[in-house]
């Protein structure tokens, strides 16, 4: 079998397709990772990077297509088959047990450490590996993981995955490994990756720091919308061409012309420049301000802290100064036991009441009004909220925020899972509300929506790194600012 000239790849994925409900996460992906190769994997949010990682490490079984390790087909083998094939995965969300010691965590990952004296052997192994990957670190390997800083935990997790106990690691997947490491530690890790690859191992590196990808990988795969769009040796890429490969074809600008006089409107939010940020945050009356950048880089935290600063946890506030539209509905949006109407009216019960008593007729009238305005598809507003589809639930949350007199409306990527028709309806409402003087702060991971904004702040690693205005707002510029490196 293995006598052909080409050695068998460490991992080979063929025509892999994965769908979550109606969403196709991977749409026929072919991917080979060979020994002695550092494969860089890049792509925008939702491109399918994490999904392909989960397929390779055995956590997800593809709905179509095959996956094989070293030429052995692993149909239905799952995590065990992946481990047997020498695949190790350092997860983006840390997966160590904080209540156990580093030595004990090492044992969890390596079942081969058994019998008398396993602690001693594990300690020697992890100590040596930590010193090899991160020279001059001062981590106490007998302490519990909970005492470590987030960077130290990441270092330990990386070192554990490079350890050899019974079988050598053949492929180590590093998913955003440097997101919590500082520059010098990141450089140590990249140096180790290069050594590991030179010695015949292979690495799958996912990072939003293009400098790392370009300096460390031997080959780069660009993913987009669940497909591999480009696979080329690293020498064929520059930072600029890499950004272009990730983005879609730059579309005709649909951006609304900047309204005259918008720059003269009074400021409703004006925050000082946070440490590490390049810009302070400000929003004017009647403005739609976009928060862009890769997901989870501080946009939601910014919205939450803005909301908390402007509303009281102790006294009822009337009229409301600020309203919030949730994106993660089940986390901080809907009240699952309630009817559609109650979920809508909770935003501003004060307007429906006299002396704290809710007037049910006025509540019903409010429901009928917003049912018509946002076209909520239900025969009866007294039906449970969970009887609605996700998109219609989202409309209820919009209506809840817009029915308040709040001057500022915060939106936490609220269009996830909303169909295109609804989106168009909501965009129109937003535009007219903004013209009426309301301010919107809109976090979105969808580029089309960012392009609807008057002004955009781009976030990276929890801080604002760029501000784009009017004509400057484009996918290209947002991507360039989202990925650090020489791209901009």
């Amino acid at each position, binding site marked *: 079998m293995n006598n052909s000239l080409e050695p068998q790849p460490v991992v080979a994925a063929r025509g892999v397709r994965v769908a979550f409900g109606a969403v196709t996460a991977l749409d026929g992906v072919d991917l080979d990772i060979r020994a002695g190769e550092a494969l860089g994997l890049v792509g925008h949010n939702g491109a399918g990077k994490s999904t392909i990682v989960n397929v390779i490490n055995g956590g997800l079984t593809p709905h179509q297509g095959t996956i094989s390790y070293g030429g052995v087909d692993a149909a239905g083998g799952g995590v065990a088959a992946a481990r047997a094939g020498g695949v190790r995965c350092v997860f983006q969300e840390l997966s160590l047990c904080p209540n156990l010691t580093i030595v004990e965590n090492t044992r969890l990952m390596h079942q081969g450490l058994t019998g008398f004296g396993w602690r001693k052997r594990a300690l020697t192994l992890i100590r040596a590996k930590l010193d090899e990957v991160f020279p001059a670190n001062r981590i106490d390997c007998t302490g519990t993981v909970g005492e470590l800083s987030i960077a130290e935990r990441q270092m330990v997790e990386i070192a554990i995955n490079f350890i050899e106990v019974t079988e050598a690691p053949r492929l180590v997947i590093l998913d955003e490994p440097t997101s919590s490491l500082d520059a010098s530690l990141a450089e140590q890790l990249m140096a180790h990756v290069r050594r590991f690859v030179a010695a015949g191992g292979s690495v799958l590196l996912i990072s939003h720091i293009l400098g790392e990808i370009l300096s460390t990988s031997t080959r780069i795969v660009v993913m987009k919308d669940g497909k591999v769009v480009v696979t080329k040796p690293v020498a064929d890429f520059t930072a600029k061409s890499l950004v272009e490969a990730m983005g879609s074809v730059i579309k005709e600008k649909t951006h609304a012309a900047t309204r005259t006089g918008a720059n003269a409107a009074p400021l409703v939010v004006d925050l000082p420049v946070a440490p590490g940020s390049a810009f302070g945050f400000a929003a004017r009356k009647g403005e739609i301000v976009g928060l862009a950048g890769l997901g989870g880089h501080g946009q939601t935290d910014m919205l939450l802290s803005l909301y908390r600063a402007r509303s009281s946890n102790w006294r009822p506030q009337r009229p409301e100064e600020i309203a919030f539209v949730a994106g993660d509905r089940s986390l901080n949006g809907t*009240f699952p036991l309630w009817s559609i109407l*109650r979920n809508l009216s909770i935003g501003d019960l004060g307007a429906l009441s006299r002396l704290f008593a809710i007037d049910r007729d006025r509540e019903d009238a409010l429901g009928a009004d917003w049912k018509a305005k946002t076209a909520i598809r239900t025969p009866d507003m007294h039906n449970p909220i969970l009887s609605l589809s996700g998109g219609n639930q989202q409309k209820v949350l919009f209506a809840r925020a817009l029915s308040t007199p709040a001057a500022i409306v915060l939106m936490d990527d609220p269009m996830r899972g909303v169909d295109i028709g609804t989106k168009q309806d909501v965009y129109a409402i937003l535009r007219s509300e903004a013209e009426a003087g309301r301010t919107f702060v809109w976090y979105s991971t969808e580029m089309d929506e960012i392009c609807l904004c008057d002004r955009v702040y781009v976030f990276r690693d929890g801080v604002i790194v760029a501000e784009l205005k009017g004509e400057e707002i484009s996918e290209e510029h947002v991507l360039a600012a989202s990925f650090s490196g020489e791209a901009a």
Partner: protein
Amino acid sequence: MNALKPVLSKPWIWSWLAALATFAATALFTGGASAFGLSQATLTFAAFSVMVGLGQMLVITLGPGNVDLSVPATITLSGTLALKFMETEGSLVLPGLLIAIGIGFAIGAANYALIKLLRIPPIIATLSMSFLVQSLAIWSNRGLRIKPPEALAAFTTGTTGGVPNIALAGLVLSVIVWWLLERSIYGRWISAIGQSPFAARMAGIPVDGTRFVTYVLCAVLAAVCGYLLASFSGGAALNMGAEYLLMSIAVVVIGGSAVAGGNSNVPGIWGASLFMFLVVSMLNTYGFGAGIRLMLTGLIIIAVIVAASRPAGGKR
């Protein structure tokens, strides 16, 4: 049958059916002779459970982890101090009531201060508070049993139009709490917090303020119960609140309120309180020994809870 459907879908219906069945079983056994006396006693004792149960229900509505274990100590302290203050003086009946309410307010505020400032889970905070409060009661009681003022004793043991006054007091408090829960903004807020505190905060609800008010309301209701109970039983005793710890929680659960919070009802508190008293009377009437009685009580309660627990998320 269709006309019955809205009634049968109410979560509190099971506690009422159970109470009625138990009443019938007891009355039939005695040939109906004791029916009037039994209903008088039941209404009176159930009313005390209702008062503490209402407060506990509001707290439980706040969601998982919220419970007030200082209820028994609050009953004891408010009964003790109010009677001590009145010193059998008829003119001090109303000021005595205000003292009791003030004690409830102070204990509720202190409970929430512990929960919020020291970040202690409610179950621990209210339990430790109950030790402090109980110690205060012991210290101020000193084994003396002060009688209630004549007028108050007469009121609490008397009847109006054949209905015990205590039951009427419980009914008035129930109507107030029902209005708060079903008709007021406050009721919507506690229900929202019980379903999801994070979502409630992001919908503009003053979560801390609402929770504070709820813990205060619960302690005030317990304090009023203590004031009436001490007057009814001819003086405060240090163990007078003891049985109301589990009782206050049991009537909420049996009454069909969601243990996980967010969905409560007042009628169920009445049904469950009546039922809890009737079960014990019934087993007493049948002449069972103490061991069997406790066991059967437990089994019957489990049966009612199983009957009452239906899938959540019904139409409201």
